[in-house]
C-alpha cells in the first residue's frame, strides 16, 4: 500500500548562501494493508520528515513514493489532493483549522469532502468525539479555543473520521491520559483490522509495542557524511 524506493531529500536555503542541507538518502520502506510500521530513531533523525514526504507535504529530491499506486514524488497537485481525500490520512501533532468552525464540523469535514451526507458525517463525528471524551458542550465551539490535549483529541477524531486505506500517525498518543490513550490505541487496532496500512511515530514505548508489527530505524536513511 505504501512503497518508498530510494527516497532522498535535501533543503536548499537560497537566502543563506544557497546552503544545501541533505536530510535523507536511500529511504526505502514498504507497508502492506493491515500492517503498522513504527518509525524509530533519535530526535532529528528524520522521522517526521519521512512522514511529510509520504504525505506530499515535502517535495522529494529523488526516488519514488507510491501510495495506493500514485507516485507522490511526481504527482500533480490535484492527484495528491484526491489521494489525501480518499486514500491517505494524516494525524499530525498540530491542529490547523479555520477559526470559528465548530469542532463537530472540523471532525466531519473529511467525510463531507468525499460526499457523505452531512447528517451521517456529523453522527460519525459525534461518536468519535464522545469516545475521546470531548464534552458535548464543546462540540459547537471552535477547537482553536481548546486546551492542547483537547485539540490533540479533536485532531485524532478528524484523522479517524473517514476510513482511509493508508494512515500516517505522528505521536497520536502524546499528552493523553490513560483512558484516552486506550481509546486511541483501539482506533488504531480497528484501522489495522479493516486493512489500513499505517506508518506511525510513537514515543510512548508501551503503545508502540502494542500496535506496531515492526520497526524501521530512520537513522539508516541519514545522508552519509561527505566522503
Amino acid at each position, binding site marked *: 500500500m505504501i512503497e518508498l524506493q530510494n527516497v532522498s531529500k535535501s533543503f536548499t536555503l*537560497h537566502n543563506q548562501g544557497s546552503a544545501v542541507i541533505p536530510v535523507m538518502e536511500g529511504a526505502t520502506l514498504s507497508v502492506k494493508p493491515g500492517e503498522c510500521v513504527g518509525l524509530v530513531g533519535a530526535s532529528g533523525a528524520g522521522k517526521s520528515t519521512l512522514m*511529510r514526504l509520504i504525505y506530499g507535504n515535502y517535495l522529494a529530491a529523488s526516488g519514488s513514493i507510491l501510495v495506493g499506486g500514485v507516485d507522490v514524488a511526481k504527482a500533480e497537485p*490535484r492527484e495528491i489532493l484526491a489521494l489525501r481525500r480518499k486514500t491517505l490520512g494524516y494525524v499530525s501533532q498540530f491542529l490547523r483549522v479555520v477559526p*470559528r468552525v465548530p469542532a463537530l464540523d472540523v471532525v466531519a469535514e473529511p467525510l463531507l469532502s468525499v460526499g457523505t451526507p452531512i447528517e451521517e458525517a456529523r453522527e460519525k463525528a459525534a461518536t468519535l468525539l464522545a469516545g475521546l471524551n470531548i464534552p458535548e458542550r464543546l462540540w459547537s465551539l471552535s477547537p482553536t479555543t481548546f486546551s492542547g490535549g483537547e485539540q490533540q483529541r479533536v485532531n485524532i477524531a478528524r484523522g479517524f473520521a473517514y476510513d482511509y486505506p493508508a494512515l500516517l500517525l505522528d505521536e497520536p498518543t502524546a499528552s493523553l491520559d490513560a483512558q484516552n490513550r486506550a481509546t486511541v490505541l483501539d482506533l488504531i487496532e480497528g484501522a489495522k483490522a479493516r486493512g489500513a496500512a499505517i506508518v506511525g511515530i510513537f514515543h510512548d514505548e508501551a503503545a508502540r509495542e502494542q500496535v506496531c508489527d515492526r520497526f524501521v530505524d530512520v537513522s539508516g536513511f541519514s545522508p552519509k557524511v561527505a566522503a
Partner: protein
Amino acid sequence: MTPLLQVKDVAKMYGARIGCTDVSFDLYPGEVMGIVGESGSGKSTLLNCLAGHLAPDRGEVVFDTRADGPVDTVTMSEPARRMLGRTDWAFVHQHARDGLRMSVSAGGNIGERLMAVGDRHYGDIRARAADWLGRVEISDARIDDRPSAFSGGMQQRLQIARNLVTGPRLVFMDEPTGGLDVSVQARLLDLLRGLVREMGLSAIIVTHDLAVVRLLADRLMVMKDGHVVETGLTDQVLDDPQHGYTQLLVSSVLQV
C-alpha cells in the same frame, strides 16, 4: 477530465515593462488556486487578463463552456465574454464598493445578475435574493437596505452573494479578505470554504496573505516580477518552498 480553465503562455506588457509573462496552468473543476506575490508582482494583472478585464498581448485563456466546450475567451466575441462574466464567471473585488451598486438595495444588488439573464418575475427574484442573504449570513430584514448601511464584512458577503446567485462555475477573487478585521476575515474564509465545497466551485484567489491561501487554496502559484517562480500543492509550497523568493516570502510571515 477536461480542465475548466486552460491558461497557455499568457503575457501582458505595459509598454516595455512586464505585467506578467509566460503564465501557463490548468485549473480543474472544484480546484481552488491561490496566486501569491508582493505588490507589483503581476498577480492582479494576471487575474484581470484571465477574467477578461484586460486583453493579454499573447496567449490563450481557454474556458470549458457549458454550451460549446473549450473556447478561447481572449478571441471570443465581446458579447459572449460579457455573458460569461454574468453567468459562469464571477469576480469578487477587494473593495466591495467596486463590485456593488452602492445606490441599489441589497436585494437589487443580488437580483441584478438574475435580471441580466432574463428573470422577469419580481417575486422569484426577491425570494432568491432573500435566500442568498441567508446563505451569506445577512438577515433578510436587511434586504431593502443599501450596502452603504452595511459594515465592511457584510458588504463583502453581499458582494459574494451577488456574484454567486447565478451559480457560476469559476470565481475570480482579488484580495477578498483585504481590509477586513481578522475576526471578520475568519468568518468570510469559513463562508467561502463552505460555498466552494457545496457548489463545487473552482476559484482563483489573488492575495498576499499566506494564511488565507493555506486555508482556502488547494494549489499555489508564486509570482515575482511578472514571472511565475514556483507552483505546487499549497502546503508543500509553504512548508517546503523550493525557490529563493518563496522561502523569503514564507520566512517573512510574522508568527502569532
